[in-house]
C-alpha cells in the first residue's frame, strides 16, 4: 500500500525517472570500463569529485547541480590526469597511483566537508548527502539535468559503439587502422566522469562506482556478445536504480546509494549462481555429470578388457565369463564403492548383468546390447590412443580433438589404415558379436543363475 502511495507522488515519479536513466547510462558505459580493465577508474573519479563539489559550495554558496557538475568535473579531470601522469613519469604502476590519488582526493574532500558542516550556513547545506546519496533530495531541475546528461551519454555510446569496441578489445590494432585511440580513451574517461557526477547526489561518492561495474559484470554472465551485453547491462542498471530508490523511500533517512548498490548486487549474485552457461551451479552440474560419465565409461572399459583377457585365456566351452566387482576396482583404479555405484547405473541402463555364483559372490558380464555399446566405446578409445600416439602421421587429416568420437571424422581409407595399425599393436577389441566366446558371455536370464 505504502509503495503504491509513494508511486503516485509526482516527486517520486521524477526521482524514479532520473534513477532509471542514471542506471541505464552507467550500466552501458560501465561495460566498456569493465572490458577495458578500468573497473576502478570510476571509483577514483567519484572520490575525486567530492573536493570539487565542496570547493564549488565554498566559493559560490549555491547548491545547483549544474555548478557541482563543473566542480566535480574539474576535480575528476585533475584526478585522472594525476593517475596517468604518476604512472607514466614514475616507476609507480597504475593500480598504485590510482589508490594514491583516490585516497588523497577523498581525504581533501572529507576535510572540506567537515569544514562546511561546522560553518554557519553549512549545517543546512545537505552536502553530507553526497557521501551515501539521497535520491529523495533531488528536485525537478536536478532530474532534468540528470536526464539530459544521461541521454547524451547513451546517444554518444550508440554512435561510437564500433570505436569503443575496438578500444576495449584491441587498441593496438585500432591505432593501426588509423583511429586515434588516445583520444577515444580520453573521451571514454570523460563520459565515465560525467556519468559518475550525475550519479553523485542520488548514489553518493562512496558507492557510485558500483553503478558502473555491477550491472556490467552481471550482464557478462548472460551473454557472449558485446551488443547484447551492453543492452542487458543498461537494463540491469535501470532495474537496480528503480528497486533501490523504491526501497529507500520506504524508510526515512535510508540513503539511496546502499539500496541501489545492494539491488545491483542481488542481480549479480543471482546471475553468478544461475546463469545457464557461466553460472556456478550450471558449471558444478556439468562437472559432476562429466565425472559420472567418465566413471561409468572407465568401469565399462575395465569390464570389457577383463572379459577380453578372460575370453582369451580360458578354454573354449569352459565356464561362463564374469568378473567380480573387486577385480574391476583393481583394474580401473577406482574405489569399490565407486565401481558398485557405476555398476548399479549400468544395470539401470541395461548394459551389464549380474550373475550369482555358487559360492554366494557374484560376477558381472555384458548384456547383448551392452556388449555392442562397449565395443564401440573401447574401439573409439583405442583409436584416440592410436591417434595421439602417432599424431605426426595424421597431421594432414583434419581432426577436431574436442569432439568425442574419432571414427566419424575419418575417411574410409584412413579408418582402414588405423584399424590395421590397431591390429598391429594387438589393440583391436576382441569381443564382438561374432566372437566364439560370445555364447558364454550372456547370462541366460538377466541376473539369473547360470547353469
Amino acid at each position, binding site marked *: 500500500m505504502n509503495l503504491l502511495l509513494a508511486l503516485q507522488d509526482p516527486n517520486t515519479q521524477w526521482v524514479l525517472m532520473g534513477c532509471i536513466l542514471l542506471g541505464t547510462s552507467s550500466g552501458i558505459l560501465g561495460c566498456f570500463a569493465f*572490458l577495458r*580493465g578500468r573497473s576502478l577508474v570510476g571509483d577514483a573519479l567519484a572520490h575525486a569529485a567530492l573536493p570539487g563539489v565542496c570547493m564549488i559550495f565554498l566559493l559560490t554558496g549555491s547548491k545547483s547541480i549544474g555548478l557541482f557538475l563543473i566542480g566535480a568535473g574539474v576535480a575528476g579531470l585533475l584526478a585522472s590526469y594525476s593517475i596517468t601522469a604518476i604512472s607514466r613519469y614514475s616507476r609507480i604502476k597504475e593500480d598504485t597511483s590510482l589508490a594514491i590519488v583516490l585516497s588523497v582526493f577523498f581525504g581533501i574532500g572529507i576535510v572540506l566537508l567537515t569544514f562546511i558542516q561546522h560553518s554557519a550556513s553549512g549545517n543546512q547545506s545537505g552536502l553530507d548527502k553526497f557521501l551515501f546519496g539521497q535520491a529523495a533530495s533531488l528536485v525537478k531541475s536536478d532530474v532534468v539535468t540528470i536526464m539530459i546528461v544521461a541521454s547524451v551519454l547513451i546517444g554518444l555510446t550508440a*554512435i*561510437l*559503439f*564500433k*570505436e569503443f*569496441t*575496438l578500444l*576495449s*578489445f*584491441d587498441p*593496438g*590494432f*585500432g*591505432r*593501426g*587502422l*588509423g*583511429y586515434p585511440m588516445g583520444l577515444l580513451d580520453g573521451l571514454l574517461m570523460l563520459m565515465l566522469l560525467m556519468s559518475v557526477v550525475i550519479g553523485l547526489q542520488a548514489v553518493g561518492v562512496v558507492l557510485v562506482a558500483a553503478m558502473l561495474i555491477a550491472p556490467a559484470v552481471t550482464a*557478462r554472465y548472460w*551473454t*557472449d*556478445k*558485446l551488443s547484447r*551485453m551492453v543492452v542487458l547491462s543498461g537494463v540491469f542498471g535501470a532495474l537496480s536504480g528503480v528497486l533501490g530508490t523504491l526501497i529507500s523511500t520506504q524508510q526515512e533517512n535510508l540513503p539511496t546509494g546502499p539500496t541501489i548498490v545492494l539491488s545491483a548486487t542481488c542481480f549479480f549474485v543471482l546471475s553468478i549462481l544461475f546463469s545457464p552457461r557461466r553460472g556456478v551451479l550450471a558449471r558444478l552440474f556439468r562437472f559432476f555429470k562429466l565425472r559420472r560419465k567418465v566413471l561409468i565409461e572407465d568401469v565399462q572399459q575395465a569390464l570389457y578388457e577383463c572379459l577380453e583377457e578372460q575370453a582369451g585365456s580360458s578354454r573354449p566351452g569352459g565356464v561362463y565369463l564374469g568378473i567380480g566387482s573387486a577385480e574391476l576396482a583393481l583394474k580401473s583404479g577406482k574405489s569399490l564403492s565407486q565401481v558398485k555405484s557405476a555398476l548399479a547405473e549400468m544395470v539401470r541402463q541395461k548394459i551389464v548383468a549380474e550373475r550369482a555364483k555358487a559360492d554366494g559372490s557374484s560376477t558381472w558380464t555384458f548384456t547383448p546390447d551392452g556388449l555392442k555399446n562397449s565395443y564401440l566405446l573401447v574401439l573409439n578409445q583405442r583409436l584416440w590412443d592410436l591417434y595421439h600416439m602417432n599424431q605426426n602421421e595424421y*597431421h594432414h587429416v*583434419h581432426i577436431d580433438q574436442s569432439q568425442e568420437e574419432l571414427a566419424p571424422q575419418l575417411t574410409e581409407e584412413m579408418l582402414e589404415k588405423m584399424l590395421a595399425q590397431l591390429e598391429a599393436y594387438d589393440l583391436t577389441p576382441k569381443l564382438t558379436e561374432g566372437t566364439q566366446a560370445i555364447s558364454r558371455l550372456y547370462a541366460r536370464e538377466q541376473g539369473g543363475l547360470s547353469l
Partner: protein
Amino acid sequence: MSSQTGAVPLLVRDMTVAYQKKPVLRNVNLSVPEGKLIGIIGPNGAGKSTFIKAVQGLIPTASGTAEVYGKPFSQQRRSVGYVPQRESVDWDFPTDALDVVLMGRYGRLGWFRRPGKADRQFALDCLKKVGMADYADRQISQLSGGQQQRVFLARALAQEAQLYFMDEPFAGVDAATERAIIQLLNDLKKQQKTVLVVHHDLQTVDEYFDWVILLNRRVIAAGPVKEIFTAENLQKTYGGRLQVLGTQVLLTNDKTSGEADAT
C-alpha cells in the same frame, strides 16, 4: 590500389626507437621489394616487434620516417594490414570470431558507420580462406590457440591491404594452422602483396620466405634469403647464442657451401 607502380611498398629512413634512455632500435634504413614474403629474424629482445610497431606509428619513435608506396605512412593506413601478437588481447572478450574479423573492415568504414551485410559477407569469406568458416559464431575464448591466430589472420585479410605486418603468427600454433598460414602467405604473394613476418624459427626461414631482414638492435643485413641467410650473417646477428642452435648452424653451413659449389 595495387597499381601504385614505381614506388616501393615500404621505405624506412633513419628510424630510431628508444624506451627510457637506451635505444632499442638504431638507425634503421630499409627498402622492401613488392610481392615478396619477408621474414624479420633476430634473437629475443632484438627489437623485431618494436620495429613493425614503430614503422606503423603504434609506438613513439625518436627519429625516422616510414613511407608506404611513396607516401607517408599516416596517409596510407588503408593499404596496410596488421596481425598483432595473439597474447596482446583478452580472448575472454564477449565477441565471436566473425565480429573480430569484421574489425578488419572498420578502417574502410570510417567513423560512426556500422558494418553492413556486404561487410559481413566479406568477413565470412576471409574466415573461409583461413579454414574457419564453421567457427564464425563461436565465442573467441572457445577457440584453440591456432584457431585464434587464424581469426587474427582473417581480420587482416578483411583489411584488403597491400602491405602486411604479422607479429609472430607461427608462435605456438598447431600443424593445421601453420599450413593454413603458409597457404595464405603464398596466396597473398600471388596477388603481388608484400608481407613482413616476425619469425623466430631459423629452421624454416628458407622454406617460407623469399627475403629476410636480420635484426639485432640495428639491421645486420637485408636481402634475398639465398644471399643474406648465411652462416656468417647469422653469426653477426646471434653472436655467441648461435652455438646453442647446434645442428642448425651445421645445416646452414652445409647449404651455403653447397650453393657456393654449385654456382
